[in-house]
């Protein structure tokens, strides 16, 4: 049976195996043993020599390349990467996992696109490796790996706080009773067996929890641990005088790998194709924004204007591809003298405020200060460049958050199904409108980006406001 470290490199077994390998001097030199494992893999269909990773560094890059291609390349063939699911690759794979995580931690940090990709790829690789195992081995491996991570007879739902917070799992994925997450078969039958009429408790357990939920939890926990590991490395690296040059080299080559899909397949997340800023066009606004522009009744006015409309309109006008860029920007990076803010953005926010019932500023003029604050200009009555940076420029709320904050605004249309954030809707609809009316695109000084209607990058789509 394969070891736990094959699916969880951060397990005790994984860490011990890495330690046992001792010196890691030959990370960048050809490793005949590794090459042998890959070329002798019975499932491999590698036709070119340059497709064979020859050392730890190249194997690390193949790990990520596999995930990017699997996700984005319609021509993707797993047989070119079949060595990744061969248990014999384990001891090499462990080192490449740590190398990659450390390179990302040192160079990019835990909140980077690279980190996200690493975490997602680890989850996907685990899933793939588990699928390749026979049923019995898979079940045993899942149980063994989970036992090490949970180490408790019964586990409280709050134990998964991090996973819930990062949306790796949903509370509704879990079976809860008296605060416990029910994972064990006997526990399930003892607690719920008597409530089941005309149904076999054993079969119900297998369907509702069984391997599927256990596997989900295991994968998500390892993903979270990977994220935490990258974060720890990042913290330690900040105190280092000089990072290991091998890690820096790996990080650089990683950037090249990531650059390729952005140009070839459009990997980089986001749901729309609006890459440049241009004047706001209302016909591309999502239904929630159109509804808020028409006015909000007393009760939800503040949140609608300050927390929802202000970030949406400012980003839609100045930086519609913010989630794709994955960088922190200031308003003045896009509008250096604040002309657009004063002449286009604020007037539209104020228009929405005026249309409220009663008009928002009539009884709450102080909300003008909050609008300035949400664009990053501190708590001041006048929006001035000198105050920029006193507060953060809030990113637009995700659809999920709108449903919680302002449920009455959410009246989805057919395009809403494809996106997770109103800003993505704006990008998508702008693109569609430009296709229908070519002149509109020219007038708006915008160019089509990598139009994708799928939800490749759920994190970008679901990104919430900085609230």
């Amino acid at each position, binding site marked *: 049976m394969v070891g736990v470290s094959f699916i969880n490199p951060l397990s005790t077994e994984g860490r011990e195996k890495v330690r046992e390998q001792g010196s890691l001097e030959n990370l960048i030199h050809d490793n005949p043993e590794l090459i042998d494992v890959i070329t002798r893999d019975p499932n491999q269909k590698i036709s070119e020599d340059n497709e064979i990773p020859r050392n730890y560094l190249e194997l690390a890059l193949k790990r990520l390349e596999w995930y990017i291609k699997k996700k984005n390349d319609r021509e993707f063939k797993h047989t070119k990467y079949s060595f990744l699911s061969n248990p014999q690759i384990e001891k090499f794979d462990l080192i490449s996992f740590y190398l990659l995580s450390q390179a990302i931690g040192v160079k990019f940090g835990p909140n980077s696109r690279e980190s996200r990709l690493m975490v997602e790829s680890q989850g996907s690789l685990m899933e793939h490796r588990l699928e390749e195992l026979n049923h019995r081995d898979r079940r045993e491996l899942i149980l063994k790996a989970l036992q090490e991570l949970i180490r408790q007879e019964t586990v409280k739902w709050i134990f998964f706080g991090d996973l819930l917070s990062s949306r790796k799992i949903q509370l509704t994925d879990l079976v809860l009773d008296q605060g416990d997450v029910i994972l064990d078969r006997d526990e399930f039958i003892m607690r719920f067996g008597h409530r089941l009429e005309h149904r076999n408790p054993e079969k119900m357990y297998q369907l509702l929890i069984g391997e599927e939920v256990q596997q989900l939890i295991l994968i998500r926990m390892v993903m979270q641990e990977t994220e935490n590991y990258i974060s720890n490395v990042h913290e330690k690296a900040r105190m280092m005088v000089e990072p290991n040059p091998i890690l820096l080299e790996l990080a650089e080559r990683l950037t090249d790998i990531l650059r390729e899909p952005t140009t070839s397949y459009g990997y980089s997340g986001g749901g729309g194709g609006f890459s440049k800023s241009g004047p706001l066009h209302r016909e591309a606004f999502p239904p929630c924004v159109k509804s808020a522009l028409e006015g909000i009744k007393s009760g939800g006015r503040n949140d609608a204007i300050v927390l929802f409309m202000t970030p949406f309109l400012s980003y839609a006008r100045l930086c519609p591809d913010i989630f794709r860029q994955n960088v922190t920007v200031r308003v003045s990076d896009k509008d250096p003298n604040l002309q657009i803010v004063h002449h286009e953005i604020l007037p539209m926010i104020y228009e929405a405020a005026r249309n409220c019932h009663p008009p928002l500023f009539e009884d709450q003029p102080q909300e003008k200060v909050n609008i300035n604050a949400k664009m990053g200009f501190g708590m001041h009555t006048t929006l001035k460049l000198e105050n920029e940076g006193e507060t953060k420029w809030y990113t637009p709320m995700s659809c*999920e958050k709108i*449903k*919680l904050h302002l449920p009455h605004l*959410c009246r989805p249309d057919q395009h809403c199904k494809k996106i997770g954030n109103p800003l993505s809707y704006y990008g998508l609809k702008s693109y569609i409108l430009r296709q229908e009316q070519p002149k509109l695109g020219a007038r708006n000084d915008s160019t089509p980006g990598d139009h994708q209607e799928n939800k490749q990058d759920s994190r970008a789509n679901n990104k919430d406001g900085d609230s």
Partner: protein
Amino acid sequence: MEFKTATPQERRQYYREEWDVKDVPRFIRDSLYQREFGFDHYGRGPNDRYKVFRNSDYLRKFMRVRTPFAAYSSVAFYEKPNRRDGWLKSELVFDVDAKDLPVRSCECGSVCEICLEQAKEIVRDILDTLQGDFGLKNIYTIYSGRGYHVRVLDEEVMPLDSEVRGQIVKYMVGADVPRSKYSRDGMTYNLEHFTIPFGYPRVFTERVKKSILHLNEDIMLEDVNKKLVKDVIKNRELILNNQWGPFKNKKGPLRYKKLIKSLAFLNLSLVDAKVSIDLKRILRLPSSLHSIVSMKCTEINNLETFDPFRDAVPKFVQERKD
């Protein structure tokens, strides 16, 4: 009983003759110095914020002298509450406002005995799920003046962020349709939410059941036409008797799917979700006066026997002559 705004004299009478600082629940008095207080002195919203009281005595004096229109305290605990700085933790709160219920059995337009009873029913369900599914114990129920606040102070939930709180709210009200497709050994099985008598599917079934039982023909449901609403109302006896299978068969699988999706969305308005996810919210101070309706915001010891029209009415209302 008439809901009439309290006059400044009535507020004075309330805070000087009837109110006692000991009526402020202990869970607030014990953490007074870590909470931000906010006041509305003129009935225009709580714009006197960032107040802190070192002990109950300072709060007592303030209330007696200022006799505010409304008083609030934060659900958050801070290192420096006077600057809302150094956030430590927040209560987990559910706000059920009778006037904002998405489906109402009454037509009062504001609040009345019927919709307050309906709000109480929702609170009962929330308490049941908080205790039964989430295993939480340190829970307080407050009558807010126009509805109810459920305040959870179990230490393990207090540090949770907005994201997790958002998920708890959705679980609590049944805002996500549970999946119905389950697979095992390569086979896919269909298990509807009403066939699973525990966990989230049970919560969802119960919430949807109540929404259906309270539906009226005037309701506007997303993606559901008037005819389907009428059909649902016609057959809701089946739901009352938990005959979900026959009910679903009568509607047909596609119409049933549309219906429950729409009701899940509607359920999100059973509570004011933004109150639950806001870590720095201020909430009406229990024991204070809800001056708009002249009722006391009060801690409830026994939800079953609590009657707002008996237990939350200040003396000055009983003494009113008009």
